[in-house]
């Protein structure tokens, strides 16, 4: 569902950028105005979304428990899977954010001759890690375009990324891994019948978009090269809030940039907000201390209750008959 729609949307974006530059020559629009607008949309959209979440209270104090709760001191409890303290929660969140711990648990349920079997299934975890980490490395690497002078650390990361001397200029592993991981996630989405069934255009679109960004980046580096000095001139001017778009960079760069801008704009209004959301997820970021501390619902409403008095009124004779003490005779 929606594969072709999403694919053609991305193609359309590419064409917009292509004609915008190659035919209309709108360098300032695509090089300055759209990137600024996209970045501002991204930041403000992100903030507003998180604030919107923040304005809703957390009435339930029910973190997901995946292990023994803390009870008595001589019973070992699961400090990470059923944390009772803030430090446990921090540990749980760190593992979740950096190691995708929940996905690491993943199983595959299957039927074998009438028996239900559970198999280990870590491909999603692996691909997810590869995707996110390579994306992070790609992002950090790109700081070389925004910072002048380029910090030594960025240069080091760049040379580690291009450790394998393949091609001229050296092939950067992170870009390739990103593209392959995105393609794997797409393959998984389409080949696994259950995942294909639940997928929406909103699932394919960001995959195609990111694959498009990676691909245009790879093309720009190895096949249809651009004037890298002018690119940096543009990016540094963006960072310095000066904003001047030199001509003659190469259209492929603007396609790359436009796809990134689309991603930035798309981000706050989509499932990509899981980046911020994971930190606010109440089933993960709360300690399981509801037996230690009393948590009161922040909008604690008045409710009608069945009082003891009413109860006694309903059953007074029966209670007396059973010898249960009553308040009123």
């Amino acid at each position: 569902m929606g594969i072709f729609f999403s694919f053609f949307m991305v193609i359309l974006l590419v064409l917009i950028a292509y004609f915008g530059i190659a035919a209309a020559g709108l360098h300032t629009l695509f090089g300055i105005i759209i990137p600024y607008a996209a970045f501002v949309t991204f930041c403000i959209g992100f903030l507003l979304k998180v604030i919107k979440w923040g304005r809703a209270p957390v009435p339930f104090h029910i973190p997901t428990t995946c292990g023994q709760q803390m009870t008595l001191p001589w019973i070992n409890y699961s400090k990470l899977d059923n944390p009772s303290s803030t430090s446990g929660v921090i540990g749980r969140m760190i593992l979740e954010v950096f190691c995708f711990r929940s996905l690491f648990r993943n199983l595959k349920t299957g039927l074998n001759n009438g028996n239900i079997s559970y198999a280990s299934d870590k491909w999603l975890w692996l691909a997810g890690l590869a995707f996110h980490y390579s994306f992070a490395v790609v992002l950090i690497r790109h700081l070389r375009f925004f910072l002048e002078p380029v910090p030594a650390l960025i240069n080091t990361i760049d040379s580690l990324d291009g450790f394998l001397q393949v091609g001229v200029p050296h092939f950067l592993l992170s870009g390739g891994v990103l593209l392959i991981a995105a393609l794997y996630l797409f393959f998984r989405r389409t080949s696994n019948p259950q995942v294909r069934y639940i997928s929406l255009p909103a699932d394919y679109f960001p995959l195609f978009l990111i694959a498009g960004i990676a691909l245009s980046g790879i093309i720009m580096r190895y096949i249809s090269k651009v004037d890298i000095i002018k690119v940096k001139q543009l990016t540094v001017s963006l960072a310095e809030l000066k904003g001047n778009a030199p001509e003659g960079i190469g259209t492929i760069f603007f396609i790359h940039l436009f796809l990134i801008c689309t991603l930035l704009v798309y981000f706050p209004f989509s499932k990509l907000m899981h980046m911020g959301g994971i930190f606010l997820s109440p089933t993960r970021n709360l300690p399981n201390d509801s037996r230690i501390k009393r948590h009161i619902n922040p909008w604690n409403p008045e409710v009608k209750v069945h009082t003891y008095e009413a109860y006694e009124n309903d059953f007074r004779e029966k209670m007396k008959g059973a010898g249960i003490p009553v308040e009123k005779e």
Partner: protein
Amino acid sequence: MYNGSKIIIGLIIFLAIATFPFYSNIGKSAGVPMPDTNTPVINGLDKKECVASAEYMKKEHMKVLDEWRDEVVREGKRDVINVGGRVFEKSLQNGCMQCHSNKSRFCDECHSYAGVKPYCWDCHHFKEGRI
């Protein structure tokens, strides 16, 4: 907002990361490097012409050098390139650097601007002011 302080701290961290390129460049006004062709040899030329256009060389010089390398070392094609009667050797040291004898201005400046570290100079070497 509920748990406001924590959320705001988180958002400030997010903004600090997202806008890092904007504030980290403050006070480091960056000059844009221009490959400098001001060398005695080039200045002495009537027609300033290289093996290919400057536009092409800007983007593809690494590829040109790589191809030359294979042609010369592996295929023994040491034939020279003739541009308008001027002869160029297919060589970094004995070709390019003969005219562009200002490595720091012609090579290094752009490379460091773009954060590129070619390993050419691990073997090939250049003596500044040799010509």
